[in-house]
């Protein structure tokens, strides 16, 4: 079914990063002329000219260090032998990289290295994948004349990290790990301790890796040229023999990886330097936490059962498909066509999502399709469509490198989007200013070499009040970019907005009490944002998962338009999307009112295109959203559901309500990797494919379409889209594709923003940011550059309306939720990996004053109750949150966080208000009951 794909994987390391200069110099490397940007190192210029100068401490992801002294060269007219990594090219420079003098020096340096290195190459785990070994060969070292002297051969191993080992005896003290931790990851967990011959790599203050600040991103392992820092998988299994480029399936950053295998056994995932989203970086999840794919809990055979209280029965694929089709047909016959619906998954590929929504619309003949984006970023789609005309972020990730001011609202990038978080931190270390709007003191507020200029520590639920106050200051202080507004925006809507926002009710002074943010702090932040050259807003679910989520998205859009911060590098409105393909799932027509490309189902032109190509009549009225389907199920009108890769019984709010709705259905079909909370209510379980088995595309938060390539064959024997097609066929509508590539071809034919996209183009270019069509054949990194997609930017007035969910005497604390680095979403994947060493349970963070008042001590079991329900977890006393606010994560089903969240939701999109729940805390002696 899949044509073999041969993608060239570029391993060439140019030694030093690219120079950014626009002027060019010509240098002669061993007589060969090469033109390079001014500031390019001799080493890089030589690489570009085809000459690899020996090196150990240099690698092109890190600034030149100049310590190994293998890369010495001779420069005509200069005395000495400068290091080629730290010496920039100058016009007309003539360099010799190979001379008898240099050969002797390099041999001498290598002789020193090897005089302090174990001579166990043949049994070393890096045998064949070791730069020290390579360089010893390159310089032609044939003997070590030094007799046994002082050495580090007895230095110990640190195996504390579950994924990699540190063998100090093999360390050559090149500092690549230390520099990667600082420059790339920005955690500064590693340093060199002591000096001289005693110099050694030290996690924190000579701690074990696991006890240090290390976040296990793997950058150090990636950077290590020897076996010193190495994946335990490689030590256990051996060096990989083949490679497949693919895309991570965790968060919305969408990192490119090279899967390295021995046969069909995955050895390691290595971040891809060519990756458009990650440029060679990774986090603990993508780099290491993929073991769930082969976890023994995986269900790989289809299963059915008559009733949800009977035992599952393993069956062959045809029987499972027939079982589901028969039940679905029966439901439609008995309860009408609209008694069925489907949910697409943000974890699945564009192609898989596309066929599910196609099946629902074309085969089930209903528009009752929705997606889990409903519960996360639906307000983003709505708000940005209203104001700018496109339901997506405006920038590429690289844009942050040009930002002078970065405003982070309701997002915690270093935990939830760590690879982008590192990119952001790099820019912050370079001098960009940071404004954080968050009830919590997230890591970015103060971390090594980073300190927020302003932290607006607002009360949960008052986002709109705070952003209105910021806009009020900007409008009334005269900081509006009038030229931008006049030229690019709808002036009538702007005038209305300006009148509204200038009202005294929107002043910081008026909103200080409600928001809990001092007026002066808001005024300072407004000045910082408005007066910078480039100001960019990055936000997360702390913006969208509110009753005014859509309002807030539009309020931020107003702010960006009013200050002219849109349409170029370094600015924009950037949602940090939660799941790997939440952007794609939305793009692919997963919403009940929209076809792919966000065209309304009532749009005649669009519908006719689909009707023509699909060869079937399509409904023009929107279908039901998830909450409506669940409500209809409880009232008996909605009886069957196809749920693709989404555990709504755990992840959706007010779990009791979801359970009741699912229980009321006649046929729940779950397509997933594992049995989960939702499958407890299912009649058919269709085994899904892990990302390692998928063939298709994911679209990340920057609209980047990345290829997902099959690394191993599907454990269940079928691709997910094949299963969906089989069910559709059984229901009477044929969807005939030979492979995933053909599905993308159909998407391209029907979706204007995808018109130019094909697997061939993706294989050629690596990735593409939509829109990609005739106007933008190479894709669109920055949107709204010349004009807004909707024409003129639309201002929307955004009155602050307090949520109904507020603290009361009975529920005096406000609970807000978030994520931590090592776990992902409801934890279905990460809980099935060694990541549990970092986060074995969800914990409630509570301020000391609130804890004391309730007699709660650090580590105590407590009961958290809201008007929706109650659950138990352990308390952690923290000053990251203000008094009156409590915080937890929702990674573990046992903690049942969503038992207590309410069914409040965004007024425009029904996105649940996860981020504000009034609760009370009381000590509990009971031990949490496992589920």
């Amino acid at each position, binding site marked *: 079914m899949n044509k073999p794909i041969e993608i060239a994987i570029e391993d060439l390391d140019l030694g030093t990063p690219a120079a950014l200069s626009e002027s060019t110099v010509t240098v002669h490397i061993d007589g060969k002329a090469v033109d390079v940007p001014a500031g390019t190192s001799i080493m890089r210029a030589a690489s570009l000219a085809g000459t690899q100068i020996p090196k150990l401490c240099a690698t092109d992801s890190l600034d*030149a260090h100049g310590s190994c002294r293998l890369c010495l060269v001779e420069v005509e007219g200069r005395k000495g032998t400068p290091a080629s990594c730290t010496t920039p090219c100058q016009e007309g420079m003539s360099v010799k990289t190979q001379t008898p003098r240099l050969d002797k020096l390099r041999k001498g340096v290598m002789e020193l290295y090897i005089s302090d290195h174990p001579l166990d190459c043949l049994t070393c785990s890096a045998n064949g994948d070791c730069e020290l070994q390579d360089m010893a060969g390159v310089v032609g070292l044939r003997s070590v004349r030094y007799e046994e002297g002082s050495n580090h051969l007895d230095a110990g191993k640190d195996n504390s990290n579950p994924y990699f080992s540190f063998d100090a005896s093999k360390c050559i003290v090149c500092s690549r790990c230390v520099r990667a931790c600082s420059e790339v990851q920005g955690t500064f967990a590693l340093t060199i301790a002591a000096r001289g011959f005693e110099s050694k790599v030290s996690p924190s203050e000579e701690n074990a890796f696991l006890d240090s600040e290390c976040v296990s991103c793997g950058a150090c392992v990636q950077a290590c040229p020897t076996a010193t820092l190495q994946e335990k998988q490689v030590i256990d299994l051996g060096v990989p023999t083949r490679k497949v480029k693919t895309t991570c399936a965790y968060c919305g950053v969408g990192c490119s990886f090279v899967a390295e295998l021995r046969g069909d056994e995955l050895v390691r995932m290595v971040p891809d330097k060519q990756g458009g989203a990650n440029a060679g970086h990774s986090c603990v999840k993508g780099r290491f936490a993929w073991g769930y794919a082969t976890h023994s809990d995986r269900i790989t055979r289809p299963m059915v059962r008559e009733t949800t209280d009977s035992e599952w029965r393993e069956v062959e694929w045809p029987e499972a498909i027939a079982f589901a089709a028969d039940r679905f047909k029966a439901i439609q016959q008995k309860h009408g066509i609209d008694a069925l619906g489907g949910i697409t998954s943000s974890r699945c590929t564009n192609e898989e999502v596309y066929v599910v929504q196609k099946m629902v619309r074309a085969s089930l003949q209903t528009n009752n399709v929705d997606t889990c984006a409903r519960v996360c970023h639906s307000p983003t789609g709505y708000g940005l469509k209203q104001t700018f005309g496109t339901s997506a972020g405006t920038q590429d990730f690289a844009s942050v490198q040009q930002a002078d001011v970065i405003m982070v609202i309701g997002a915690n990038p270093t935990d939830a989007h760590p690879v982008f978080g590192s990119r952001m931190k790099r820019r912050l270390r370079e001098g960009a200013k940071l404004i954080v709007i968050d009830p919590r003191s997230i890591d970015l507020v103060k971390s090594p070499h980073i300190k927020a200029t302003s932290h607006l520590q607002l009360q949960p639920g008052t986002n709109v009040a705070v952003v209105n106050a910021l806009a009020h200051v900007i409008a009334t202080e005269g900081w509006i970019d009038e030229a931008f507004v006049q030229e690019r925006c709808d002036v009538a809507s702007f005038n209305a907005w300006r009148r509204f926002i200038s009202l005294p009710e929107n002043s910081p002074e008026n909103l200080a009490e409600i928001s809990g943010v001092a007026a002066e702090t808001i005024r300072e932040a407004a000045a910082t944002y408005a007066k910078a050259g480039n100001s960019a807003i990055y936000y997360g679910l702390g913006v969208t998962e509110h009753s005014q989520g859509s309002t807030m998205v539009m309020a931020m859009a107003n702010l960006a338009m009013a200050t002219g911060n849109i349409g170029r590098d370094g600015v924009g409105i950037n949602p940090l999307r939660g799941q790997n393909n939440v952007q794609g799932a939305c793009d692919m027509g997963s919403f009940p009112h929209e076809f792919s490309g966000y065209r309304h189902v009532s749009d005649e032109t669009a519908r006719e295109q689909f009707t023509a190509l699909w060869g079937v009549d399509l409904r023009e009225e929107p279908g039901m959203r998830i909450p409506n389907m669940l409500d209809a199920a409880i009232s008996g009108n909605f009886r069957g559901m196809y749920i693709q890769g989404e555990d709504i019984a755990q992840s959706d709010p007010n779990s009791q309500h979801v359970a009741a709705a699912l229980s009321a259905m006649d046929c729940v079909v779950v397509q997933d990797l594992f049995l989960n909370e939702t499958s407890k209510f299912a009649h058919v379980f269709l085994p899904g494919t892990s990302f390692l088995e998928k063939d298709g595309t994911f679209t990340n938060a920057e609209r980047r379409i990345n290829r997902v390539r099959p690394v191993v064959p599907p454990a269940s024997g079928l691709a997910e889209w094949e299963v969906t097609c089989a069910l559709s066929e059984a229901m009477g509508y044929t969807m005939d594709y030979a492979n995933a590539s053909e599905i993308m071809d159909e998407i391209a034919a029907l979706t204007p923003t995808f018109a130019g996209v094909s697997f061939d183009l993706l294989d050629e270019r690596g990735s593409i940011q939509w829109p990609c069509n005739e106007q933008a054949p190479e894709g669109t990194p920055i949107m709204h550059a010349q004009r807004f997609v909707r024409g003129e930017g639309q201002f929307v007035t955004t009155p602050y309306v307090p949520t109904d969910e507020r603290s009361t005497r009975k529920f005096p604390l406000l609970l807000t939720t978030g994520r931590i680095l090592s776990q992902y979403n409801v934890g279905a994947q990460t809980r099935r990996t060694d990541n549990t060493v970092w986060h074995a349970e969800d914990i409630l963070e509570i301020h000391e004053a609130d804890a004391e008042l309730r007699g709660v001590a650090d580590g105590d079991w407590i009961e958290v109750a809201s008007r929706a329900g109650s659950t138990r977890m352990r308390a952690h006393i923290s000053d990251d949150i203000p008094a009156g606010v409590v915080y937890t994560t929702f990674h573990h089903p046992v903690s049942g966080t969503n038992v207590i969240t309410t069914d409040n939701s965004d007024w425009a999109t029904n996105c649940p208000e996860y981020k504000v729940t009034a609760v009370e805390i009381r000590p509990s002696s009971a031990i949490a009951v496992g589920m």
Partner: protein
Amino acid sequence: MTVWFVPRDAAALSVGADAVAAALEARGEHVVRTGSRGLLWLEPLVERADSRDGTRVGWSNVQAGDLSEGVLSEAAANFLGIVEELDYLACQNRWIYERVGIIDPVDPDDYVSHGGMAGLQRALEMSPMSVVQAVTESGLRGRGGAGFPTGIKWQTVAEQAPVPHKGDPVDAPRHKYICVNADEGDSGTFADRMLMEGDPFCLLEGMAIAAHAVGADRGMIYLRSEYPAAIAVMSDAIEKARARGWLGESILGSSCNFDVTIRVGAGSYVCGEETAMLESLEGRRGTVRAKPPLPAIEGLFGTPTVINNVLTIASVPSILARGPEAYAELGQERSRGTQVFQLAGNIARGGIVEVAFGISAHELIFGLGQGTKSGKPLKAVQVGGPLGAYLTADALQVPMAYESLAAEGAMLGHGGLVVFDDSVDMAEQARFAMEFCVEESCGKCTPCRIGAVRGVEVIDDLLASDAPENAEQLLRDLCDVMTQGSLCAMGGLTPQPVLSALDQFPEDFKRVAVRVDVAAQGVVHE
């Protein structure tokens, strides 16, 4: 009124100067504490004048007990007569050290009345570029060891725009820095210390002139922790200079704003290397940075930075005050002006000798220093610190100047001369050079980090071997790798004393051979 002068310099304190001063004061005498004249074998050297600025006569090696009988007598055996007429001082040409030992180092009035601040006054009347020009014309070169032309360095910094600290926002305050390297770690050198203890305002004045010349607003003195007295004097002087308007906003009523702070080092020799010093000043581990970028373009906190040695900066006030031409007339070739030589080791009369470049080592050691202290024959002189080469007794006619020493395979360094008599084992000295590098290497680059350790081992092998040719070849190869391959002068110069010893004193490396000979003779005798 009779005034007594007792040094407060650490060298004098170490031989009882405080007790002497206390004893004089106890007798009701008016005592002024000064720096040291630099005639260290005479310390405590106590001087007396009829008035503050009167002619001074002196007594050598005074101890507090000598004063129990009454004040010092001109008839005493240790009476020196008029101090300025002592041959050791009379032959000197003091520019940098013109006030050291004469004034109270922390009395601004004393400083001014002895010509202090004339250089800065003059500089502030000139345009910044004219000041740079004057320094260039004087021929002044860096006295830290590298000998880079100071005017060119200043010119480079002057041409850069000030920038915010690296990592600060674009609208953060913009700076340039004057950093003074007072991490005087070379064995046998003490001129920086004595200048700071004896005339701290001179250094501050020089820094202010540099600041005016290059447009710097901040100064830092990187002062080694081993110099507590210098730290105290400099700190006191900075306070007083601020109070006088010599530092701070609108220096001397000009538009020049410049202030100075002291950063105390933490005992690392390599932090005297300028880039390691920058790392240390920025609060990081003292490891060497690769150049480029040059500190003049991207130095402290990423800003354009002048890094000069204490003696370099302290030369500037007198150059400005007396005129660059007068300075440039001194010396030879491209070694212009004066050098503060420091005579140390096994020498009869150790101390400070500031004279024009070109004096021979022989004149310094035998003329002024009067040969070894032990009275034994001189075997070698190490010039320029622990990484400097050795001059043999036959080579001492070499003029002390950058070019002539380089021609001998030696270097001037910071101007220190350490004398050894014939009891020294040069093989041990070679081994010590490698050992010193083991101890002081920052550990960044491989040739220095591993090479120095192997250097000690190979020398041990060589000395223990009955076939030392292989070990010697390996040692020479290693020295080659260290010299050409090291990131900075620490590893790069360590082979200099090693090879210098090996080449000039090969017999000291032939221990086994000697033993074998003796043994062989023994056999014959049996």
